[in-house]
C-alpha cells in the first residue's frame, strides 16, 4: 500500500511539471513585450544553419534570414528586437515550437503534411532531395547498387523515413539501416566504414562533404529517392506571425537580399556551391506578391 502511494505521488509530480504554464496571446505581442525573439537553429545543417567552430555561433543561410526577420521586427516595433538562439535537433525542433520554447525554427526542415498537423510552416524557400553520400571509389551509381550495403540516416528525419519506406516496399534491399543521432555522426559512421552510404538532403550532404578533410573522396549519387521542400516552422494558428515571416521572405526576394544571401552561402564561392536551378529561380520570382514599402508597420 505504501509503495502504491509512493507511485501515485511520483505520477502526480510528473503531471505537475508537465502542466507547465501555457502562454496566451500571439507571438508578435510576446516579441514586442519581451524585445526578444527565440529562434531555433540546427548545429550541423550546412549551409543552412550550423555552428561555426571558429566563432562558436550559429551561422548559415537561414541564420542570416533570421537576422532579416529580426531587423523587420525591430522596424515594426520601433525598438531593437534581439535574437535568442536555441540549438535544436531533428527530434526537438517541432516540439520546441509547439510548446513555446522557441517562436520559430529556421533551418532546413522539410515541409510535410504530417508535420503540418501539429505546427504551421512558412512558405517554401528552398528545394532539396533525399539522396546518398558514398565513397567515390565505391562504384555506387544506382539504387540497386545499394543492395546488400549498410545505409545510414539520422533519427527523426524525412530521409530516414524515405529510406525505410523504400526498403519496406522492396525497392532496394540494404543489409542494414543504421540510425545516427546527428549528421556529423552519420559522416563519422561513413568514414569509419560502419555504413556504406549516408542519406540526407543533397544540399546537406554536399555541406558535410565540403567540411571533410578530403572532399574529393566522397560524392553524392546521381539519383534521388524523395523530394524535400524546405520551410520554417512556426506555431499552429498564429497567422499574424506567420504572415510576418512570409512577408520577410517575399520582401527579401523582391529586394534581392535573398539572392545575395544565396550567393554568399550557396553561390560558386559559397560554403556549399549549389547552382540555382531555373525552376527554383522561377518559383521564387513567381511567389512574390505585390508588397508595399513599409509593410512591416502595424
Amino acid at each position, binding site marked *: 500500500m505504501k509503495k502504491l502511494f509512493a507511485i501515485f505521488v511520483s505520477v502526480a509530480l510528473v503531471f505537475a511539471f508537465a502542466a507547465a504554464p501555457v502562454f496566451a496571446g500571439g507571438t508578435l505581442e510576446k516579441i514586442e513585450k519581451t524585445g526578444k525573439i527565440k529562434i531555433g537553429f540546427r548545429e550541423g545543417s550546412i549551409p543552412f544553419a550550423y555552428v561555426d567552430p571558429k566563432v562558436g555561433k550559429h551561422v548559415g543561410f537561414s541564420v542570416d534570414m533570421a537576422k532579416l526577420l529580426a531587423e523587420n521586427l525591430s522596424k515594426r516595433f520601433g525598438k531593437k528586437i534581439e535574437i535568442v538562439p536555441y540549438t535544436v535537433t531533428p*527530434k526537438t525542433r517541432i*516540439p520546441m515550437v509547439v510548446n513555446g520554447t522557441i517562436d520559430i525554427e529556421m533551418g532546413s526542415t522539410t515541409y510535410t503534411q504530417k508535420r503540418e498537423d*501539429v505546427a504551421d510552416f512558412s512558405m517554401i524557400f528552398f528545394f532539396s532531395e533525399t539522396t546518398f553520400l558514398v565513397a567515390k571509389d565505391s562504384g555506387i551509381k544506382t539504387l540497386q547498387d545499394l543492395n546488400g550495403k549498410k545505409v545510414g540516416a539520422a533519427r*527523426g528525419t524525412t530521409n530516414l523515413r524515405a529510406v525505410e519506406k523504400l526498403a519496406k516496399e522492396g525497392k532496394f534491399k540494404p543489409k542494414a539501416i543504421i540510425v545516427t543521432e546527428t549528421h556529423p555522426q552519420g559522416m563519422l559512421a561513413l568514414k569509419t*566504414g*560502419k555504413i556504406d552510404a549516408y542519406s540526407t538532403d543533397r544540399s546537406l550532404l554536399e555541406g558535410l562533404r565540403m567540411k571533410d578533410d578530403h572532399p574529393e573522396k566522397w560524392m553524392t549519387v546521381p539519383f534521388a529517392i524523395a523530394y524535400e521542400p524546405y520551410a520554417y516552422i512556426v506555431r499552429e494558428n498564429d497567422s499574424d506571425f506567420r504572415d510576418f515571416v512570409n512577408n520577410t521572405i517575399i520582401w527579401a526576394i523582391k529586394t534581392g537580399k535573398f539572392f545575395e544571401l544565396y550567393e554568399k552561402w550557396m553561390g560558386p564561392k559559397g560554403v556549399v556551391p549549389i547552382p540555382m536551378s531555373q525552376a527554383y529561380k522561377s518559383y521564387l520570382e513567381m511567389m512574390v506578391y505585390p508588397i508595399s514599402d513599409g509593410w512591416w508597420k502595424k
Partner: protein
Amino acid sequence: MAYNFDWSVLWRQPYGMWLLQGLWLTIKIGLLAWIIALSLGIVIGTLRVTPWKPLRFFASAYTELFRNVPFLVQLFFWYYAGPMLLGDRLGHALNQIIGLNYYVAIFALGIYTASRVAEHMRAGFASIGREQYQAVLSTGMTQYQMYRYVIIPYALRIILPPLTTEFLTIFKNSSIAMTIGVAELTFMSYRIDAETFHGLEATTGAMFIYLLLGLTVVRIMGFIESRFKIPGMIGR
C-alpha cells in the same frame, strides 16, 4: 497551445509493438551487461585487495578509468573509435557486423558497471573484520581458497542492497544506447514521437514501462536479499 492527447499511440499498431520490441531489447541489454558487470566486477574488486601489487595497480587503474569517464563518452569511444584501434583489417571486419551497436552497448555498459560493482566489492571486503581473514588463513587455506570460498560469498551477501541499485541502474543506463542507434525502449518512444508527434504520450508510456521494470527488479532482488542476507547484517 492546443495539444490533443492521444493515448492510443501506446497500443495502436505498429506503435504498441514497437514499445514491446524496445522493452525486450532493453531487458536483453540489461541482463547481458549485468552478467559481464557482475562477473568482471567481482574479479576486479577482489584484485584491488589482494596482496600482489601489480594486480592491485591494474584493478585500481581499471576502476578509476571507467568510473571517472561519463558513460556516454565511453559508449561513443567504443562504437566509433574502438574498431579502429584494432587495425585496418580487424576494424573493417568488425564494422561489417550487423548489430554492432547492440553488442558495443552491452560490452560498454558491462565494463562500465563492472567498475562500480568492483567498488561495492571493496566496501564489502572492508566491512569484514581483519580477524576473519586471519582465522580463514589459519585453517590452512590458500589466498585463492580464502577469497573463493569464504570472503567473496561473505562480501556479496553484505553488499546485496547496493548491488540492487546497480542492477536497476544498468536498465536505466541502457537507454543511452539509443545515441548509437540501438532501438531500445527510449529509442522506440522517440520513434513514435517522430512518427505521430505524440511524444508526451510515448515518453510517459516509456516512463511507466521503466517504472514497472524497475519495480520488478526490486521485487526479485528483495526476494534474493531475504534468502541470502546474513542475519543481523542487513535488513534489520
